[in-house]
């Protein structure tokens, strides 16, 4: 047996689901070394990212959060995922990144959990805290992202204290690789409009993005990014139309940053930035008008993922249902997922071997 291509086994293994790999792993020392190697975990993660899976968290008021994978072809048939920790201890879902789900407790996200549902391992992280004097307000935002330069998963924590007129912002970054927090000396002179969006950041291009305003708590007109490798803030250009209109939320579609906003209060638009950082590459992907959407105009819309090779877009609306929007025909169909008593939140995730 000469010239056996060593890439063959690695390539085949990288296509297997985590369940099979965890079994393979326990069969021999050599296979465990192979499957545990950072190079292989990376390869497997890249392979997993070729097909987006959906994870839906649903929460009834005063009860625990439950997670289930979602198959849009048969939305009612999915088995609830077991969580190795008590979800009532961590009721807030912050986001997902490559198969890691990030949750936190309230208030102020004092404790954060990173959970890999595929391997069922999790890690609890205590966050740095600053207690303001009683006259000051305190808000904290946290989000998880992947730094591809350092092959590291990071959690960014933004703490803002102060009154209406002045702001004091502090930034901390947690590295999973080093298992430690570092304070980052960076100016962040922006306001979050908490009435409009919950300040949830999204990770694109190894950077976390938020919608903020320079002027007051009422505006929502700037996109700010935090690069996880260089650990610095930058402004990202948004579509021209949102100079006067409001951006309500951010999302990621096909690896590209997208914004949702109300256009002159008569339609809900989703714009996608085809080429990162290039203002001209913003294009209008979705326009929902009250005619298409048979409910009221003021809806919270979150873009989730593409379907049918980019022909359709899945939008989560009001934490209750999906609008599946046909980009060419400009029509949409609805799939009910939650209901008035149960709020849902949908995340794109993959099954990966990422170690915690």
């Amino acid at each position, binding site marked *: *047996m000469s*010239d*056996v*291509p*060593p*890439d*063959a*086994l*690695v*390539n*085949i*293994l990288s*296509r*297997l*689901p985590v369940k*099979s790999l965890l*079994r393979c792993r326990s*069969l*021999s020392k*050599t*296979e465990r*070394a*192979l499957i545990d*190697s*950072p*190079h292989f975990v990376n390869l497997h993660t890249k392979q997993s990212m070729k097909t987006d899976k959906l994870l839906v968290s649903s929460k009834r008021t005063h009860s625990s959060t439950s997670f289930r994978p979602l198959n849009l072809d048969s939305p009612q048939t999915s088995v609830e995922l077991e969580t190795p920790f008590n979800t009532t201890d961590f009721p807030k879902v912050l986001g997902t990144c490559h198969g890691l789900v990030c949750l936190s407790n309230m208030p102020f996200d004092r404790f954060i959990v990173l959970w890999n549902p595929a391997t069922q391992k999790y890690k609890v992280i205590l966050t740095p805290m600053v207690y303001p004097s009683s006259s000051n307000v305190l808000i904290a935002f946290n989000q998880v992202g992947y730094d591809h330069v350092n092959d590291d998963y990071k959690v960014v924590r933004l703490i803002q204290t102060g009154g209406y007129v002045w702001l004091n912002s502090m930034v901390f970054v947690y590295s999973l690789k080093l298992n430690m927090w570092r304070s980052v000396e960076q100016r962040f002179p922006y306001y979050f409009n908490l009435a409009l969006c919950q300040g949830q950041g999204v990770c694109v291009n190894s950077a976390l993005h938020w919608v903020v305003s320079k002027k007051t708590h009422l505006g929502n007109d700037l996109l700010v990014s935090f690069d996880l490798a260089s650990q610095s803030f930058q402004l990202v250009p948004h579509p021209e139309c949102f100079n006067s209109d409001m951006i309500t939320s951010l999302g990621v579609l096909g690896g590209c940053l997208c914004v949702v906003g109300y256009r002159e209060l008569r339609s809900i638009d989703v714009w996608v930035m085809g080429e990162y950082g290039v203002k001209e590459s913003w294009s209008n992907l979705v326009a929902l008008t009250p005619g298409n959407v048979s409910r009221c105009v003021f809806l919270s819309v979150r873009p989730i993922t593409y379907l049918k090779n980019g022909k359709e877009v899945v939008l989560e609306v009001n934490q209750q249902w999906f609008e599946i929007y046909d980009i060419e025909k400009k029509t949409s169909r609805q799939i009910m997922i939650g209901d008035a008593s149960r709020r849902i939140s949908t995340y794109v995730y993959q099954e990966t071997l990422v170690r915690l």
Partner: protein
Amino acid sequence: MSFSKTIMLRNYDGETFVVDEVVAVEPQTIEHMIEDGCANTSIPLPNITSKILSKVIEHCKKHVETPNSNEKDAKADLKSFDFDFVKADQGTLFDLILAVNYLNIKGLLDLIYQTIADMIKGKTPEEEEEMRRVNAWVFSCFVGVTCLYFKSKKI
């Protein structure tokens, strides 16, 4: 009616296969050989048997002949061809891996790797164990060489 150029491929068994150039350049290895001017007489492929080479040529031919359109029928036809193509025994599949890897035909390589992954995926632990036992020598070769590969890359 123009004549298309043909290429001669001479393999391990000494057999010569005459193939249209447009099909012959599907494998990148052969494309490079032609560019480098090695294709004046016939291209030698001493490590590939007739059985495997004819299968590879069949696959290249089908994919070249199918128009690259988004038409549903064409795509479905190609998909069913690929589905039947990989219904070979494991020995043949592993021989195909060696040949296709040497010839550097990415699409076919992906298809074979995915097929083997699907074969492993669908098995119970007992069936997996059985499959591994039967192919133990292949797996042990793979694992041995792969570990040497990783060692040499210092991963």
